[in-house]
């Protein structure tokens, strides 16, 4: 989707405004990207360490426009976890903030652009890449799991087109970044807006910083996107009392928002000439699968809406049979051109083709009302969302077993419970898991249990670990 043609079409539009207020036109962004690609010169695998900065974005454009395959990672990811991923996937290059370069094995500096550096690593025989493979994203980035989602060029353009259509994005839009770029939801904001010649307000500042709000005002941001936790912060910040005439659109995904909070935002938007889009998505479907049209934000409160343009939902029962009746709970299935090719768990998987064939069995339990609106009611898989990020509970257990022999992880969104049998190690456990995952310690609680309940084959019985 990032063809030279796109950058020519919007050549003199502003693509990016940074925190200092400096504009970068589409042709500027393209020139920066071309400079980076000139040092690569061939299709290969790159690890790109993301931040909401012009350099990070230029790297992404360089890779996508020249069919170089990037794995997008958090620039602040734990260096031990980074090294493990490097050993599994053997990238030829790294695009990384200069301050984050650490003791990689045999590396060479090729280019510095702003705060970023392009590094070549010594790779004897790189893994072959499938022709359709465009981009790799992590499934649970914070735990360093090597399980990645494989996305195609068609996936990216299909999802960006669809999002731009239902949000009615045009070149006048100015979204401000509130989500990281390596996160599929954050990336989808970037893709869907650049596709239409809009201007991104790039910042790494959090909502809790004064600089974020002065940038939002001076940049005349027209939209902001958030996970449920973002909306809790907005409420805490007395968002409803702020006068932000340019801000017209709020989009929410990354988990189900508390219903009362959802109502407050829906009512506020309704009475202040703003639009609230509640959405649902997964990295496995590039980013988004559903949206609730804003005119239904109140009458269909709690719903994740309907399938995005070009997509289709169905529900299946435990035997895999399609459920036709309304109000009956089943597993949510999505069909569309944005459904990923599949997963990769090692470098050998990068040659794999399309395994999903356009159908994603989501692992989420949902029901449909008589008007065709869908509601998420639960999950089949063992993960929770913490501040919008999927955290696999088996992965965090595996990490914790590096320091403690017996433990079990469970919990609800934004709150993980860790059961151990030695409470004297409580602080150590929280410190370790928080450092490894980069998630604030406030999201973790440790509970005592004298023995982790297990079945005869040694598997933990999580249903007996009720909070």
């Amino acid at each position: 989707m990032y063809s030279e043609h796109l950058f020519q079409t919007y050549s003199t539009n502003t693509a990016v405004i940074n925190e200092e207020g400096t504009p970068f036109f589409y042709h500027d962004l393209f020139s920066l990207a071309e400079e980076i690609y000139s040092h690569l010169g061939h299709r290969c695998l790159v690890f790109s360490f993301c931040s909401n900065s012009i350099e990070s974005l230029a790297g992404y454009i360089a890779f996508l426009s020249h069919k170089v395959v990037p794995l997008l990672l958090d620039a602040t990811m734990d260096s031990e976890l980074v090294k493990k991923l490097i050993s599994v996937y053997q990238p030829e290059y790294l695009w990384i903030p200069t301050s984050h370069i650490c003791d990689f094995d045999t590396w060479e500096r090729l280019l510095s652009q702003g705060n970023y550096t392009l590094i070549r690593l010594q790779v004897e025989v790189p893994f072959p890449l499938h022709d359709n493979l465009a981009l790799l994203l992590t499934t649970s980035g914070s735990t360093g799991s090597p399980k990645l989602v494989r996305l195609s060029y068609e996936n990216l353009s299909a999802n960006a087109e669809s999002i731009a259509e239902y949000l009615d994005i045009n070149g006048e839009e100015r979204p401000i970044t509130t989500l990281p770029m390596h996160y599929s939801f954050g990336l989808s904001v970037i893709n869907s807006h650049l596709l239409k010649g809009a201007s991104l307000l790039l910042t790494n500042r959090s909502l809790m910083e004064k600089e974020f709000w002065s940038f939002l005002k001076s940049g005349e941001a027209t939209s902001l996107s958030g996970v449920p936790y973002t909306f809790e912060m907005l409420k805490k910040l007395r968002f409803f009392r702020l006068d932000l005439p340019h801000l017209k659109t709020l989009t929410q995904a990354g988990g189900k928002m508390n219903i009362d909070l959802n109502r407050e935002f829906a009512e506020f938007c309704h009475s202040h000439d703003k639009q609230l889009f509640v959405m649902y998505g997964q990295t496995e479907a590039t980013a988004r699968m559903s949206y609730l049209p804003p005119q239904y934000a109140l009458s269909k409160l709690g719903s994740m809406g309907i399938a995005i343009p070009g997509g289709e939902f169905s529900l299946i029962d435990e035997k895999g049979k399609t459920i036709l009746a309304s109000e009956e709970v089943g597993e949510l299935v999505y069909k569309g051109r944005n459904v990923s090719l599949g997963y990769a768990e090692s470098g050998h998987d990068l040659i794999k083709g399309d395994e999903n064939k356009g159908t994603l069995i989501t692992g989420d339990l949902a029901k449909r009302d008589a008007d065709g609106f869908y509601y998420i009611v639960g999950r089949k898989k063992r993960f929770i969302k913490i501040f919008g990020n999927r955290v696999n509970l088996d992965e965090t257990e595996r990490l914790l077993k590096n320091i403690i022999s017996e433990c079990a992880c469970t919990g609800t969104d934004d709150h993980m419970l860790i059961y151990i049998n030695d409470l004297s190690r409580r602080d150590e456990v929280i410190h370790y898991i928080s450092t490894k995952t980069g998630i604030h310690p406030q999201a973790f609680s440790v509970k005592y249990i004298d023995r982790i309940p297990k079945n005869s084959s040694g598997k933990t019985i999580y249903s007996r670990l009720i909070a």
Partner: protein
Amino acid sequence: MTNLEKYNEIFTNRFNPNGVDLDQLTNQSVQLWDSVGHMGLIAELEECFNIRLDTFDIIDFSSYCKGKEILLQYGIVL
């Protein structure tokens, strides 16, 4: 407990500064003082002192010392 003791206790428990002088504490110097930590801090202070801070004061609350000045505007003498 005096207001100052309460204020100090909240900062100490939350950011565990390991003997660092509280006067030196800023949101840039403590890793735990990120957006999640900040939201928790504000909620705890509001409950403890029975006040509701305005938007500008919440985002301006960038250090231990700055916080004292802000609370004073709400009639909380530390």
